[in-house]
């Protein structure tokens, strides 16, 4: 089907919400692309995300959505294009440095530290804001105690956003599925990101869990005033909470705009439902 879908570049139309007007965007992708195994998995990806915007990244399976996340977090190094994060070029950075620069993410297949307790999962993510060294830890010096207590308090506070403080000491791997997804979000937030990437947060959830998740994403957005990009197949969730939506198909952006615009876009409908067979 690939040959049939003719690629027409989409003009880089800004979908920045009003409140972010006048503030530099948190993320700018310019002509981002990657070739994986000879296939252009993502090509000519342009996207600007406002300081506090929630953007949905949608598209059929295999469209390259997760690949975009992997490019942003430098799991893959892009073959072409530029990623500006808070105005800073991330060229040459690795996953760790991109996280320090402000991107945190969750994973499509949950990747928790399964044998660590829930709170330790969160505290591990605070590693970079702690300063005590190995000697302080071994000798239990005052700065170790001070920083550990502070981290512990903050971790509990973060967990309480999702009502998870009661599970703090349980091993992360023992949590029910939905709680694991929430913990992944808390862990990502603990790194103080300016941009949060959520990869199918509602996958495998029932409608009521999805509704709770939606509330939680709104709550996080309000509390932390950060930008969020969200990959999701649950259209009600995407249409409800995203301010801008970007549709990918075969590695190309086929549409960009507000939820209303996207819902009525013929290219999007075609990508999802397929083209009517010509007689």
């Amino acid at each position: 089907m690939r040959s049939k879908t003719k690629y027409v570049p989409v003009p880089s139309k800004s979908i920045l919400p009003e409140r972010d007007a006048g503030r530099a965007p948190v993320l700018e992708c310019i002509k981002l692309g990657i070739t994986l195994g000879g296939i252009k998995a993502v090509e000519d990806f342009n996207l600007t995300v406002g300081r506090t915007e929630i953007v949905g990244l949608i598209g059929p399976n295999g469209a390259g959505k997760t690949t975009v996340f992997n490019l942003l977090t430098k799991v893959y190094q892009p073959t072409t294009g530029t990623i500006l994060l808070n105005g800073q070029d991330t060229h040459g950075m690795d996953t760790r440095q991109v996280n320090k620069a402000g991107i945190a993410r969750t994973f499509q297949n949950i990747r928790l530290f399964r044998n660590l307790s829930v709170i330790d999962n969160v505290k591990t993510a605070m590693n970079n804001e702690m300063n005590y060294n190995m000697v302080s830890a071994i000798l239990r010096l005052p700065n170790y105690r001070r920083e550990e207590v502070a981290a512990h308090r903050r971790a509990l506070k973060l967990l309480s956003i999702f009502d998870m403080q009661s599970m703090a000491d349980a091993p992360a791997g023992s949590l029910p599925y939905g709680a694991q997804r929430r913990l992944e979000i808390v862990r990502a937030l603990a790194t103080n990101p300016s941009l949060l990437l959520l990869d199918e947060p509602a996958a495998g959830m029932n409608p009521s869990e999805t509704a709770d998740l939606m509330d939680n994403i709104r709550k996080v957005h309000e509390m932390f005033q950060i930008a969020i990009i969200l990959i999701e197949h649950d259209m009600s969730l995407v249409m409800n909470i995203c301010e801008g939506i970007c549709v990918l198909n075969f590695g190309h952006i086929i549409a960009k705009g507000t939820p209303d615009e996207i819902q009525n876009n013929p290219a999007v409908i075609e990508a999802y439902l397929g083209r009517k067979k010509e007689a």
Partner: protein
Amino acid sequence: MTFLNFFISGISLGSIYAIIALGYTMVYGISKMLNFAHGDVIMVGAYICFYAVVRYGLNPFLAVAVAMVLCSVLGIIVEGLAYKPLRQAPSLAVLITAIGMSYFLQNTALLLWSSNPKVFPSVVGRGAFHMFNGNLSVSHITALTIIVCLVIMVALSLFVSKTKMGKAMRACSEDKGAAQLMGINVNATISMTFAIGSGLAAIAGALLCSAYPTLMPTTGSLPGIKAFTAAVFGGIGSIPGAFLGGLMLGVIEIFAKAYISSQLSDAVVFGVLIVVLLVKPAGLLGKMTQEKV
């Protein structure tokens, strides 16, 4: 000419490593385990050969055939008893079990055959071919080893790519679950792999002890580790990789012994391994697999 002499003995030693490494690599490919007991199967094969020839007066080639059959059976038994129950277990548990099996074989051999070294009779006698007015001499066993290794390599490649069982092996090493769904008998395939690997080990044992004629219960362990290194060197899981890795390791070892220092030859061999893995982290012919995110 000395250079050529060293080179040929390197290729010969390397051929033995290659035959052992093929066993390692096939087993690794299919069950993702480091079978540390493989080196000791070599020793068992060599002992069987030794007794078949010395005590029962069998023709040496017939003796090797007997050793191959018995070692194959041993391989199947070892796999069935010790490794099969651990298919789902963490890899470290399987590794320790394999090491336990290695100790088991060594100590059983010690009880059965004592620790006194046996002088192994060469399968083809001690003669040599002389070339270039006697400047270059290649012993019969050296020539035989190289030829046997080439034959095994070709036969194994054909087996794996052309026969139904060979294809089943490749399918199992890619994805056991999917292979099972396609109607492949995974257990039988894994047993077969161990049987072939152990049969090859028996040949390697006979060749090794023909070239270096002291046979002890610990004879197999160092060549086993070296061959394992060779398999990693070439890219573990890859049959041509094991062949190439084995040959290169043999040549490097002989050259290191000749030109650097015989005491440090092992250090040189392992040093080269480390350098190769730094440049190519999956070995010379291995393929890098990236974890899906």
